[in-house]
Protein backbone atom coordinates (compact mmCIF):
# COMPACT_ATOMS: atom_id res chain seq x y z
CA UNK A 1 0.00 0.00 0.00
CA UNK A 2 1.61 3.19 -1.06
CA UNK A 3 2.01 6.32 0.96
CA UNK A 4 -0.13 8.50 -1.33
CA UNK A 5 -3.16 6.20 -1.05
CA UNK A 6 -2.77 6.01 2.72
CA UNK A 7 -2.60 9.78 2.96
CA UNK A 8 -5.61 10.18 0.71
CA UNK A 9 -7.66 7.70 2.79
CA UNK A 10 -6.71 9.35 6.06
CA UNK A 11 -7.37 12.83 4.65
CA UNK A 12 -10.78 11.68 3.49
CA UNK A 13 -11.57 10.38 6.98
CA UNK A 14 -10.65 13.74 8.48
CA UNK A 15 -12.73 15.69 5.95
CA UNK A 16 -15.80 13.53 6.59
CA UNK A 17 -15.33 14.08 10.30
CA UNK A 18 -15.24 17.84 9.75
CA UNK A 19 -18.26 17.95 7.49
CA UNK A 20 -20.27 16.04 10.09
CA UNK A 21 -19.55 18.58 12.80
CA UNK A 22 -21.30 21.75 11.62
CA UNK A 23 -20.43 23.38 14.93
CA UNK A 24 -16.76 23.35 13.96
CA UNK A 25 -17.56 24.95 10.62
CA UNK A 26 -19.51 27.79 12.22
CA UNK A 27 -16.90 28.28 14.93
CA UNK A 28 -14.18 28.52 12.27
CA UNK A 29 -16.10 31.22 10.42
CA UNK A 30 -17.36 33.18 13.39
CA UNK A 31 -14.16 34.80 14.64
CA UNK A 32 -12.86 36.26 11.34
CA UNK A 33 -16.28 37.61 10.48
CA UNK A 34 -16.54 39.12 13.97
CA UNK A 35 -13.18 40.82 13.50
CA UNK A 36 -14.44 42.29 10.25
CA UNK A 37 -17.78 43.35 11.69
CA UNK A 38 -16.79 44.55 15.15
CA UNK A 39 -13.14 45.58 14.91
CA UNK A 40 -12.53 46.81 11.36
CA UNK A 41 -14.98 49.76 11.76
CA UNK A 42 -12.77 51.04 14.61
CA UNK A 43 -9.94 51.41 12.13
CA UNK A 44 -11.97 53.69 9.88
CA UNK A 45 -10.92 56.77 11.83
CA UNK A 46 -7.26 55.89 11.24
CA UNK A 47 -7.53 55.88 7.46
CA UNK A 48 -4.81 57.96 5.86
CA UNK A 49 -3.07 58.23 9.22
CA UNK A 50 0.24 56.64 10.24
CA UNK A 51 0.48 53.00 9.20
CA UNK A 52 -2.45 53.28 6.85
CA UNK A 53 -1.12 55.88 4.46
CA UNK A 54 -2.23 55.57 0.89
CA UNK A 55 -4.37 52.51 1.28
CA UNK A 56 -7.80 51.50 2.44
CA UNK A 57 -8.00 50.36 6.04
CA UNK A 58 -9.26 46.95 4.95
CA UNK A 59 -6.30 46.51 2.60
CA UNK A 60 -4.13 46.54 5.72
CA UNK A 61 -6.47 44.63 7.99
CA UNK A 62 -8.00 41.79 5.92
CA UNK A 63 -4.72 40.12 4.88
CA UNK A 64 -3.76 40.03 8.55
CA UNK A 65 -7.06 38.42 9.43
CA UNK A 66 -6.36 35.69 6.85
CA UNK A 67 -3.04 34.99 8.58
CA UNK A 68 -4.80 34.93 11.93
CA UNK A 69 -7.25 32.38 10.53
CA UNK A 70 -4.37 30.32 9.22
CA UNK A 71 -2.78 30.23 12.64
CA UNK A 72 -6.03 29.30 14.35
CA UNK A 73 -6.98 26.67 11.76
CA UNK A 74 -3.96 24.56 12.67
CA UNK A 75 -3.91 25.25 16.38
CA UNK A 76 -7.12 23.28 16.97
CA UNK A 77 -5.61 20.02 15.69
CA UNK A 78 -4.29 19.01 19.10
CA UNK A 79 -7.77 18.92 20.64
CA UNK A 80 -8.84 16.25 18.20
CA UNK A 81 -5.59 14.36 18.72
CA UNK A 82 -6.23 14.19 22.46
CA UNK A 83 -9.80 12.99 21.83
CA UNK A 84 -8.47 10.33 19.47
CA UNK A 85 -5.96 9.17 22.04
CA UNK A 86 -8.81 8.82 24.52
CA UNK A 87 -11.07 6.89 22.16
CA UNK A 88 -8.20 4.61 21.09
CA UNK A 89 -8.56 5.44 17.37
CA UNK A 90 -4.97 6.58 17.08
CA UNK A 91 -3.77 3.44 18.82
CA UNK A 92 -5.80 1.27 16.50
CA UNK A 93 -4.53 3.06 13.41
CA UNK A 94 -0.93 2.71 14.54
CA UNK A 95 -1.23 -1.06 14.74
CA UNK A 96 -2.09 -1.05 11.04
CA UNK A 97 0.75 -0.77 8.51
CA UNK A 98 -0.21 2.89 7.90
CA UNK A 99 2.71 5.29 7.88
CA UNK A 100 2.91 7.65 10.84
CA UNK A 101 3.64 10.52 8.52
CA UNK A 102 0.47 9.72 6.55
CA UNK A 103 -1.49 9.76 9.81
CA UNK A 104 -0.12 13.20 10.60
CA UNK A 105 -0.66 14.47 7.06
CA UNK A 106 -4.33 13.45 7.12
CA UNK A 107 -4.87 16.04 9.83
CA UNK A 108 -2.53 18.66 8.39
CA UNK A 109 -4.10 18.53 4.91
CA UNK A 110 -7.58 18.72 6.37
CA UNK A 111 -6.64 21.85 8.29
CA UNK A 112 -5.08 23.39 5.18
CA UNK A 113 -8.19 22.67 3.12
CA UNK A 114 -10.33 24.04 5.86
CA UNK A 115 -8.33 27.24 5.96
CA UNK A 116 -8.67 28.04 2.27
CA UNK A 117 -12.47 27.89 2.06
CA UNK A 118 -13.36 30.28 4.91
CA UNK A 119 -10.42 32.55 4.05
CA UNK A 120 -11.80 32.98 0.53
CA UNK A 121 -15.20 33.71 2.04
CA UNK A 122 -13.78 36.43 4.28
CA UNK A 123 -11.93 38.00 1.36
CA UNK A 124 -15.05 38.02 -0.80
CA UNK A 125 -17.19 39.46 2.00
CA UNK A 126 -14.67 42.26 2.59
CA UNK A 127 -14.57 43.45 -1.04
CA UNK A 128 -17.81 45.46 -1.03
CA UNK A 129 -16.59 47.22 2.14
CA UNK A 130 -13.47 48.53 0.47
CA UNK A 131 -10.95 45.70 0.30
CA UNK A 132 -9.06 45.65 -3.02
CA UNK A 133 -7.26 42.32 -3.29
CA UNK A 134 -5.00 41.53 -6.22
CA UNK A 135 -6.11 38.08 -7.54
CA UNK A 136 -2.65 36.60 -8.21
CA UNK A 137 -1.32 38.04 -4.97
CA UNK A 138 -4.29 36.58 -3.09
CA UNK A 139 -3.56 33.13 -4.50
CA UNK A 140 0.03 33.33 -3.28
CA UNK A 141 -1.23 34.72 0.03
CA UNK A 142 -3.42 31.64 0.48
CA UNK A 143 -0.43 29.41 -0.25
CA UNK A 144 1.59 31.23 2.40
CA UNK A 145 -1.28 31.02 4.87
CA UNK A 146 -1.61 27.27 4.20
CA UNK A 147 2.04 26.86 5.07
CA UNK A 148 1.41 28.56 8.42
CA UNK A 149 -1.57 26.27 9.00
CA UNK A 150 0.54 23.19 8.23
CA UNK A 151 3.10 24.38 10.74
CA UNK A 152 0.66 24.97 13.58
CA UNK A 153 -1.42 21.88 12.75
CA UNK A 154 1.55 19.52 12.94
CA UNK A 155 2.86 21.27 16.04
CA UNK A 156 -0.49 21.20 17.81
CA UNK A 157 -1.08 17.51 16.95
CA UNK A 158 2.30 16.58 18.35
CA UNK A 159 1.71 18.68 21.48
CA UNK A 160 -1.59 16.87 21.98
CA UNK A 161 0.21 13.53 21.90
CA UNK A 162 2.91 14.73 24.25
CA UNK A 163 0.60 16.38 26.79
CA UNK A 164 -2.30 13.90 26.50
CA UNK A 165 -4.68 16.24 28.30
CA UNK A 166 -7.02 18.91 26.99
CA UNK A 167 -6.31 21.12 29.99
CA UNK A 168 -2.54 21.27 29.60
CA UNK A 169 -2.84 21.57 25.83
CA UNK A 170 -5.24 24.50 26.15
CA UNK A 171 -2.86 26.24 28.56
CA UNK A 172 0.10 25.89 26.18
CA UNK A 173 -1.81 26.81 23.03
CA UNK A 174 -3.56 29.88 24.40
CA UNK A 175 -0.34 30.88 26.15
CA UNK A 176 1.38 30.91 22.76
CA UNK A 177 -1.46 32.31 20.72
CA UNK A 178 -1.92 35.67 22.39
CA UNK A 179 1.70 36.95 22.40
CA UNK A 180 2.27 35.64 18.88
CA UNK A 181 -0.82 37.46 17.66
CA UNK A 182 -0.03 40.72 19.45
CA UNK A 183 3.55 40.72 18.18
CA UNK A 184 2.55 39.98 14.59
CA UNK A 185 0.96 43.36 13.91
CA UNK A 186 -2.35 41.91 12.84
CA UNK A 187 -4.50 44.36 14.76
CA UNK A 188 -2.43 47.46 14.07
CA UNK A 189 0.66 47.74 11.83
CA UNK A 190 3.90 47.41 13.78
CA UNK A 191 5.26 50.50 12.05
CA UNK A 192 3.40 52.29 14.83
CA UNK A 193 5.32 50.40 17.50
CA UNK A 194 8.35 51.53 19.52
CA UNK A 195 11.67 50.08 18.38
CA UNK A 196 11.93 47.41 21.09
CA UNK A 197 8.54 46.02 20.11
CA UNK A 198 9.53 46.01 16.44
CA UNK A 199 12.70 44.09 17.33
CA UNK A 200 10.75 41.60 19.41
CA UNK A 201 8.32 41.06 16.52
CA UNK A 202 11.13 39.62 14.43
CA UNK A 203 11.08 36.56 16.70
CA UNK A 204 7.46 35.92 15.80
CA UNK A 205 7.01 33.86 12.62
CA UNK A 206 3.52 35.30 12.24
CA UNK A 207 5.02 38.79 11.90
CA UNK A 208 6.71 37.80 8.62
CA UNK A 209 3.48 36.26 7.39
CA UNK A 210 1.45 39.36 8.22
CA UNK A 211 3.95 41.70 6.56
CA UNK A 212 4.02 39.55 3.43
CA UNK A 213 0.24 39.16 3.41
CA UNK A 214 -0.23 42.91 3.02
CA UNK A 215 2.35 43.11 0.26
CA UNK A 216 0.71 40.18 -1.54
CA UNK A 217 -2.84 41.50 -1.29
CA UNK A 218 -1.50 44.71 -2.75
CA UNK A 219 -0.24 42.77 -5.75
CA UNK A 220 3.56 42.73 -5.38
CA UNK A 221 4.43 39.06 -5.47
CA UNK A 222 8.13 39.24 -6.18
CA UNK A 223 9.41 41.13 -3.19
CA UNK A 224 11.89 40.67 -0.40
CA UNK A 225 9.17 40.62 2.25
CA UNK A 226 7.38 37.76 0.51
CA UNK A 227 10.58 35.80 -0.05
CA UNK A 228 11.60 36.10 3.57
CA UNK A 229 8.13 35.02 4.73
CA UNK A 230 8.21 31.90 2.55
CA UNK A 231 11.71 31.07 3.76
CA UNK A 232 10.86 31.51 7.42
CA UNK A 233 7.50 29.72 7.28
CA UNK A 234 8.76 27.03 4.89
CA UNK A 235 11.67 26.24 7.17
CA UNK A 236 9.52 26.20 10.29
CA UNK A 237 6.89 24.02 8.60
CA UNK A 238 9.49 21.45 7.64
CA UNK A 239 10.84 21.53 11.20
CA UNK A 240 7.38 21.22 12.66
CA UNK A 241 6.43 18.24 10.42
CA UNK A 242 9.73 16.55 11.18
CA UNK A 243 9.32 17.00 14.91
CA UNK A 244 5.69 15.90 14.87
CA UNK A 245 6.46 12.78 12.83
CA UNK A 246 9.11 11.91 15.39
CA UNK A 247 6.60 12.37 18.22
CA UNK A 248 4.07 10.15 16.38
CA UNK A 249 6.70 7.47 15.80
CA UNK A 250 7.89 7.47 19.36
CA UNK A 251 4.66 7.82 21.28
CA UNK A 252 2.64 5.60 18.99
CA UNK A 253 5.45 3.06 18.54
Amino acid at each position, binding site marked *: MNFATQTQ*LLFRRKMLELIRQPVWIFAGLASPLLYLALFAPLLGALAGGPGFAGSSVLDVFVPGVVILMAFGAGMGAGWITVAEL*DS*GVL*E*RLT*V*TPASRFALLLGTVLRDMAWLVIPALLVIVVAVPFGFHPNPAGTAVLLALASLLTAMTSAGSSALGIKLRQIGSLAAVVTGLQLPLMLLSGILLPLSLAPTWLQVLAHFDPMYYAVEASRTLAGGSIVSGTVGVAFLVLGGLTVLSLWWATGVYRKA*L*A
Partner: protein
Amino acid sequence: MGAQQETDCAVSTTGLRKSFSIGRKRVEAVCGVNLCVGRGEIFGFLGPNGAGKTTTLRMLATLLQIDEGEAIVAGVDVRRRPGDVRRRIGYVGQLGGADLPATGRENLMLQGRLYGASKAETSRRADELIELLALGDFADRSARTYSGGQRRRLEVALGIMHRPDVLFLDEPTTGLDPQNRANLWDQLRALRSTGTTIFLTTHNLEEADALADRVAIIDHGTVVAEGTPLELKRQIGGGMFVVYTGLPPSEMESLRTALAGLEPISEARVDGAAVRLRTDNGRAAMSAIARVLESRNVPLAALSLSEASLGDVFLQQTGRPLRDAGQNITEISR
Protein backbone atom coordinates in the same frame (compact mmCIF):
# COMPACT_ATOMS: atom_id res chain seq x y z
CA MET B 1 14.34 -22.71 22.11
CA GLY B 2 14.24 -25.14 19.19
CA ALA B 3 12.86 -24.53 15.75
CA GLN B 4 10.17 -27.12 16.37
CA GLN B 5 8.72 -25.20 19.26
CA GLU B 6 8.72 -21.95 17.34
CA THR B 7 6.59 -23.43 14.60
CA ASP B 8 4.09 -24.73 17.14
CA CYS B 9 3.61 -21.37 18.79
CA ALA B 10 1.55 -18.60 17.26
CA VAL B 11 3.03 -16.36 19.93
CA SER B 12 6.14 -17.16 21.89
CA THR B 13 8.12 -15.05 24.29
CA THR B 14 11.38 -15.68 26.09
CA GLY B 15 12.47 -13.59 29.05
CA LEU B 16 10.24 -10.67 28.07
CA ARG B 17 10.85 -7.62 30.24
CA LYS B 18 9.58 -4.08 30.52
CA SER B 19 10.03 -1.41 33.16
CA PHE B 20 8.76 2.13 33.44
CA SER B 21 9.87 5.17 35.36
CA ILE B 22 7.08 6.54 37.48
CA GLY B 23 8.40 9.66 39.12
CA ARG B 24 11.79 8.65 40.48
CA LYS B 25 10.82 5.05 40.95
CA ARG B 26 11.59 2.33 38.43
CA VAL B 27 8.65 -0.05 38.19
CA GLU B 28 9.18 -3.52 36.77
CA ALA B 29 5.93 -4.09 34.88
CA VAL B 30 6.90 -7.33 33.17
CA CYS B 31 9.74 -9.39 34.62
CA GLY B 32 10.79 -12.23 32.38
CA VAL B 33 7.65 -13.66 30.85
CA ASN B 34 7.94 -16.94 28.91
CA LEU B 35 4.91 -18.00 26.95
CA CYS B 36 3.90 -20.23 24.09
CA VAL B 37 0.45 -19.68 22.66
CA GLY B 38 -0.53 -22.57 20.42
CA ARG B 39 -1.83 -21.99 16.91
CA GLY B 40 -5.58 -21.73 16.74
CA GLU B 41 -6.20 -21.60 20.45
CA ILE B 42 -7.89 -19.05 22.66
CA PHE B 43 -5.28 -18.10 25.19
CA GLY B 44 -6.36 -16.28 28.33
CA PHE B 45 -3.96 -14.03 30.17
CA LEU B 46 -5.47 -13.80 33.65
CA GLY B 47 -4.40 -11.46 36.40
CA PRO B 48 -5.43 -8.49 38.51
CA ASN B 49 -5.18 -4.91 37.29
CA GLY B 50 -1.57 -3.80 37.17
CA ALA B 51 -0.20 -7.35 36.91
CA GLY B 52 1.46 -6.66 33.56
CA LYS B 53 -1.14 -8.14 31.22
CA THR B 54 -1.71 -5.07 29.11
CA THR B 55 1.98 -4.18 29.04
CA THR B 56 2.81 -7.64 27.70
CA LEU B 57 0.05 -7.44 25.12
CA ARG B 58 1.15 -4.01 23.95
CA MET B 59 4.71 -5.19 23.51
CA LEU B 60 3.51 -8.13 21.43
CA ALA B 61 1.31 -5.84 19.33
CA THR B 62 4.31 -3.52 18.54
CA LEU B 63 2.84 -0.67 20.58
CA LEU B 64 5.53 -0.70 23.24
CA GLN B 65 9.25 -1.14 22.90
CA ILE B 66 10.52 -4.40 24.39
CA ASP B 67 13.24 -3.77 26.98
CA GLU B 68 14.68 -7.25 27.04
CA GLY B 69 13.89 -10.73 25.79
CA GLU B 70 12.51 -12.18 22.61
CA ALA B 71 9.02 -12.24 21.16
CA ILE B 72 7.93 -14.11 18.05
CA VAL B 73 4.41 -13.39 16.80
CA ALA B 74 3.00 -15.26 13.81
CA GLY B 75 6.51 -16.42 13.00
CA VAL B 76 8.00 -12.92 12.98
CA ASP B 77 10.45 -11.38 15.43
CA VAL B 78 8.68 -8.40 17.01
CA ARG B 79 11.84 -6.46 17.80
CA ARG B 80 13.40 -6.89 14.39
CA ARG B 81 10.41 -6.66 12.06
CA PRO B 82 7.56 -4.81 13.76
CA GLY B 83 6.10 -3.77 10.40
CA ASP B 84 5.69 -7.40 9.31
CA VAL B 85 4.13 -8.25 12.67
CA ARG B 86 1.53 -5.51 12.16
CA ARG B 87 0.39 -7.07 8.90
CA ARG B 88 -0.21 -10.42 10.61
CA ILE B 89 -1.99 -9.36 13.78
CA GLY B 90 -5.21 -7.71 14.79
CA TYR B 91 -5.37 -5.69 17.99
CA VAL B 92 -8.37 -4.50 19.95
CA GLY B 93 -7.20 -2.32 22.82
CA GLN B 94 -8.95 -1.55 26.06
CA LEU B 95 -10.09 1.78 24.69
CA GLY B 96 -11.63 0.09 21.67
CA GLY B 97 -10.58 2.36 18.86
CA ALA B 98 -13.76 2.80 16.85
CA ASP B 99 -13.71 6.11 15.02
CA LEU B 100 -16.84 7.61 16.54
CA PRO B 101 -17.81 10.29 14.00
CA ALA B 102 -17.64 7.70 11.19
CA THR B 103 -20.17 4.96 10.51
CA GLY B 104 -19.38 1.34 11.25
CA ARG B 105 -19.03 0.58 7.56
CA GLU B 106 -16.68 3.53 7.00
CA ASN B 107 -14.58 2.33 9.92
CA LEU B 108 -14.31 -1.11 8.33
CA MET B 109 -13.56 0.27 4.85
CA LEU B 110 -10.72 2.47 6.07
CA GLN B 111 -9.25 -0.33 8.15
CA GLY B 112 -9.31 -2.80 5.25
CA ARG B 113 -7.81 -0.35 2.80
CA LEU B 114 -5.00 0.65 5.14
CA TYR B 115 -3.92 -2.98 4.97
CA GLY B 116 -3.69 -2.60 1.21
CA ALA B 117 -6.83 -4.45 0.10
CA SER B 118 -8.66 -3.13 -2.95
CA LYS B 119 -11.92 -1.25 -2.59
CA ALA B 120 -14.02 -4.14 -3.94
CA GLU B 121 -12.27 -6.68 -1.76
CA THR B 122 -12.62 -4.49 1.33
CA SER B 123 -16.27 -3.91 0.63
CA ARG B 124 -16.90 -7.68 0.36
CA ARG B 125 -15.05 -8.34 3.58
CA ALA B 126 -16.95 -5.57 5.37
CA ASP B 127 -20.26 -7.14 4.33
CA GLU B 128 -19.04 -10.48 5.56
CA LEU B 129 -18.11 -9.12 8.99
CA ILE B 130 -21.27 -7.05 9.29
CA GLU B 131 -23.11 -10.36 8.86
CA LEU B 132 -20.79 -12.38 11.14
CA LEU B 133 -20.85 -9.93 14.04
CA ALA B 134 -24.48 -8.90 13.52
CA LEU B 135 -23.75 -5.23 12.81
CA GLY B 136 -26.38 -4.98 10.06
CA ASP B 137 -28.92 -2.86 11.90
CA PHE B 138 -26.55 -0.03 12.62
CA ALA B 139 -23.59 -0.37 10.24
CA ASP B 140 -24.50 2.83 8.41
CA ARG B 141 -25.03 4.93 11.52
CA SER B 142 -22.34 6.98 13.24
CA ALA B 143 -20.48 4.81 15.77
CA ARG B 144 -21.17 7.50 18.35
CA THR B 145 -24.75 6.24 18.57
CA TYR B 146 -23.78 2.62 19.34
CA SER B 147 -24.43 0.85 22.62
CA GLY B 148 -21.46 -0.68 24.47
CA GLY B 149 -22.04 -4.12 23.01
CA GLN B 150 -22.50 -2.84 19.46
CA ARG B 151 -19.36 -0.80 19.67
CA ARG B 152 -17.33 -3.70 21.00
CA ARG B 153 -18.52 -5.91 18.15
CA LEU B 154 -17.51 -3.27 15.62
CA GLU B 155 -14.10 -3.06 17.28
CA VAL B 156 -13.63 -6.82 17.08
CA ALA B 157 -14.65 -6.65 13.41
CA LEU B 158 -11.99 -3.95 12.89
CA GLY B 159 -9.45 -6.24 14.53
CA ILE B 160 -10.14 -9.11 12.14
CA MET B 161 -10.85 -7.12 8.97
CA HIS B 162 -7.59 -8.24 7.33
CA ARG B 163 -7.87 -11.88 8.49
CA PRO B 164 -4.95 -11.73 10.92
CA ASP B 165 -3.18 -14.89 12.09
CA VAL B 166 -3.28 -13.69 15.67
CA LEU B 167 -5.90 -11.47 17.29
CA PHE B 168 -4.99 -9.63 20.50
CA LEU B 169 -7.86 -8.51 22.70
CA ASP B 170 -7.28 -6.43 25.80
CA GLU B 171 -10.09 -6.97 28.32
CA PRO B 172 -12.64 -7.49 25.54
CA THR B 173 -15.71 -7.96 27.72
CA THR B 174 -15.07 -5.32 30.39
CA GLY B 175 -18.15 -3.15 30.70
CA LEU B 176 -20.44 -5.53 28.78
CA ASP B 177 -23.59 -6.94 30.34
CA PRO B 178 -23.77 -10.73 30.79
CA GLN B 179 -25.74 -11.29 27.60
CA ASN B 180 -23.43 -9.25 25.41
CA ARG B 181 -20.48 -10.95 27.04
CA ALA B 182 -21.87 -14.40 26.25
CA ASN B 183 -22.54 -13.31 22.65
CA LEU B 184 -19.00 -12.10 22.25
CA TRP B 185 -17.67 -15.36 23.67
CA ASP B 186 -19.64 -17.25 21.02
CA GLN B 187 -18.29 -15.01 18.30
CA LEU B 188 -14.73 -15.49 19.50
CA ARG B 189 -15.22 -19.26 19.54
CA ALA B 190 -16.53 -19.06 15.98
CA LEU B 191 -13.46 -17.08 15.03
CA ARG B 192 -11.18 -19.68 16.58
CA SER B 193 -12.88 -22.34 14.46
CA THR B 194 -11.66 -20.47 11.37
CA GLY B 195 -8.10 -20.93 12.55
CA THR B 196 -7.39 -17.55 14.13
CA THR B 197 -5.30 -17.61 17.29
CA ILE B 198 -6.83 -15.42 19.98
CA PHE B 199 -4.77 -13.95 22.79
CA LEU B 200 -6.90 -12.11 25.32
CA THR B 201 -6.35 -10.57 28.71
CA THR B 202 -8.96 -10.68 31.42
CA HIS B 203 -9.26 -10.16 35.13
CA ASN B 204 -12.47 -12.16 35.10
CA LEU B 205 -12.10 -15.73 36.39
CA GLU B 206 -15.31 -16.92 34.86
CA GLU B 207 -14.26 -15.63 31.46
CA ALA B 208 -10.87 -17.31 31.58
CA ASP B 209 -12.49 -20.57 32.65
CA ALA B 210 -15.33 -20.55 30.15
CA LEU B 211 -13.59 -19.16 27.08
CA ALA B 212 -9.89 -19.93 27.15
CA ASP B 213 -8.37 -23.19 25.94
CA ARG B 214 -5.30 -22.37 27.95
CA VAL B 215 -4.63 -19.84 30.65
CA ALA B 216 -1.54 -18.15 32.03
CA ILE B 217 -1.92 -16.49 35.40
CA ILE B 218 0.22 -13.39 35.79
CA ASP B 219 0.94 -11.47 38.96
CA HIS B 220 3.50 -8.70 39.54
CA GLY B 221 4.85 -9.16 36.03
CA THR B 222 5.55 -12.86 36.39
CA VAL B 223 3.64 -15.87 35.07
CA VAL B 224 2.81 -17.93 38.15
CA ALA B 225 0.86 -20.75 36.50
CA GLU B 226 0.06 -21.92 33.00
CA GLY B 227 -2.12 -24.70 31.57
CA THR B 228 -5.65 -25.56 30.58
CA PRO B 229 -8.20 -24.36 33.13
CA LEU B 230 -8.84 -27.99 34.04
CA GLU B 231 -5.16 -28.80 34.54
CA LEU B 232 -4.71 -25.77 36.72
CA LYS B 233 -7.68 -26.57 38.87
CA ARG B 234 -6.59 -30.21 39.23
CA GLN B 235 -3.09 -29.16 40.16
CA ILE B 236 -4.19 -27.74 43.44
CA GLY B 237 -6.02 -31.01 44.05
CA GLY B 238 -8.63 -31.92 46.60
CA GLY B 239 -11.96 -30.27 46.81
CA MET B 240 -13.47 -27.07 48.05
CA PHE B 241 -16.13 -26.92 50.71
CA VAL B 242 -18.24 -23.84 50.65
CA VAL B 243 -19.96 -23.21 53.97
CA TYR B 244 -22.84 -20.75 53.98
CA THR B 245 -23.96 -19.57 57.40
CA GLY B 246 -26.44 -17.08 58.71
CA LEU B 247 -23.67 -15.23 60.55
CA PRO B 248 -23.29 -11.45 60.33
CA PRO B 249 -20.17 -10.37 58.44
CA SER B 250 -18.46 -9.25 61.66
CA GLU B 251 -18.32 -12.83 62.95
CA MET B 252 -17.15 -14.46 59.74
CA GLU B 253 -13.47 -13.93 60.44
CA SER B 254 -13.55 -15.71 63.78
CA LEU B 255 -15.38 -18.64 62.20
CA ARG B 256 -12.79 -18.72 59.44
CA THR B 257 -9.99 -18.86 62.00
CA ALA B 258 -11.65 -21.74 63.82
CA LEU B 259 -12.16 -23.69 60.60
CA ALA B 260 -8.67 -22.94 59.33
CA GLY B 261 -7.28 -24.58 62.47
CA LEU B 262 -8.85 -27.93 61.61
CA GLU B 263 -6.41 -30.62 60.66
CA PRO B 264 -7.94 -31.70 57.29
CA ILE B 265 -8.37 -28.10 56.13
CA SER B 266 -5.39 -26.74 54.26
CA GLU B 267 -6.76 -23.31 53.52
CA ALA B 268 -9.75 -21.17 54.48
CA ARG B 269 -10.97 -17.84 53.23
CA VAL B 270 -14.07 -15.72 53.56
CA ASP B 271 -15.92 -15.22 50.31
CA GLY B 272 -18.92 -12.97 50.82
CA ALA B 273 -21.43 -14.79 53.00
CA ALA B 274 -19.51 -18.05 52.74
CA VAL B 275 -16.27 -19.57 53.95
CA ARG B 276 -14.36 -21.49 51.29
CA LEU B 277 -12.25 -24.35 52.60
CA ARG B 278 -9.74 -26.43 50.72
CA THR B 279 -9.15 -30.00 51.78
CA ASP B 280 -7.49 -33.17 50.58
CA ASN B 281 -9.68 -35.33 52.74
CA GLY B 282 -13.33 -34.57 52.18
CA ARG B 283 -14.78 -37.09 54.60
CA ALA B 284 -12.66 -36.05 57.58
CA ALA B 285 -13.19 -32.42 56.73
CA MET B 286 -16.94 -32.77 56.56
CA SER B 287 -17.33 -34.12 60.09
CA ALA B 288 -14.75 -31.72 61.48
CA ILE B 289 -16.60 -28.78 59.97
CA ALA B 290 -19.88 -30.04 61.38
CA ARG B 291 -18.36 -30.31 64.86
CA VAL B 292 -17.01 -26.78 64.80
CA LEU B 293 -20.33 -25.35 63.66
CA GLU B 294 -22.17 -27.28 66.36
CA SER B 295 -19.82 -26.27 69.16
CA ARG B 296 -20.04 -22.61 68.14
CA ASN B 297 -23.76 -22.86 67.70
CA VAL B 298 -23.55 -21.49 64.17
CA PRO B 299 -26.60 -22.02 61.95
CA LEU B 300 -25.61 -23.75 58.71
CA ALA B 301 -27.54 -22.37 55.77
CA ALA B 302 -25.94 -24.52 53.07
CA LEU B 303 -22.86 -26.61 52.49
CA SER B 304 -21.57 -27.44 49.07
CA LEU B 305 -18.61 -29.30 47.71
CA SER B 306 -17.14 -27.82 44.57
CA GLU B 307 -14.08 -28.33 42.47
CA ALA B 308 -11.38 -25.75 42.77
CA SER B 309 -11.85 -22.60 40.68
CA LEU B 310 -9.21 -20.55 38.89
CA GLY B 311 -9.62 -18.14 41.79
CA ASP B 312 -8.37 -20.86 44.12
CA VAL B 313 -5.43 -21.40 41.77
CA PHE B 314 -4.64 -17.71 41.92
CA LEU B 315 -4.89 -17.71 45.70
CA GLN B 316 -2.64 -20.72 46.02
CA GLN B 317 -0.01 -19.27 43.71
CA THR B 318 0.03 -15.71 45.02
CA GLY B 319 -1.28 -15.99 48.57
CA ARG B 320 -4.14 -13.58 47.98
CA PRO B 321 -7.52 -13.66 46.32
CA LEU B 322 -7.72 -12.25 42.81
CA ARG B 323 -10.44 -9.75 43.54
CA ASP B 324 -8.28 -8.09 46.20
CA ALA B 325 -5.03 -8.31 44.36
CA GLY B 326 -5.39 -5.02 42.57
CA GLN B 327 -5.93 -3.16 45.82
CA ASN B 328 -3.42 -2.23 48.43
CA ILE B 329 -2.27 -4.44 51.28
CA THR B 330 -4.21 -2.78 54.10
CA GLU B 331 -7.42 -3.49 52.23
CA ILE B 332 -6.59 -7.16 52.05
CA SER B 333 -5.68 -7.63 55.70
CA ARG B 334 -8.94 -6.10 56.85
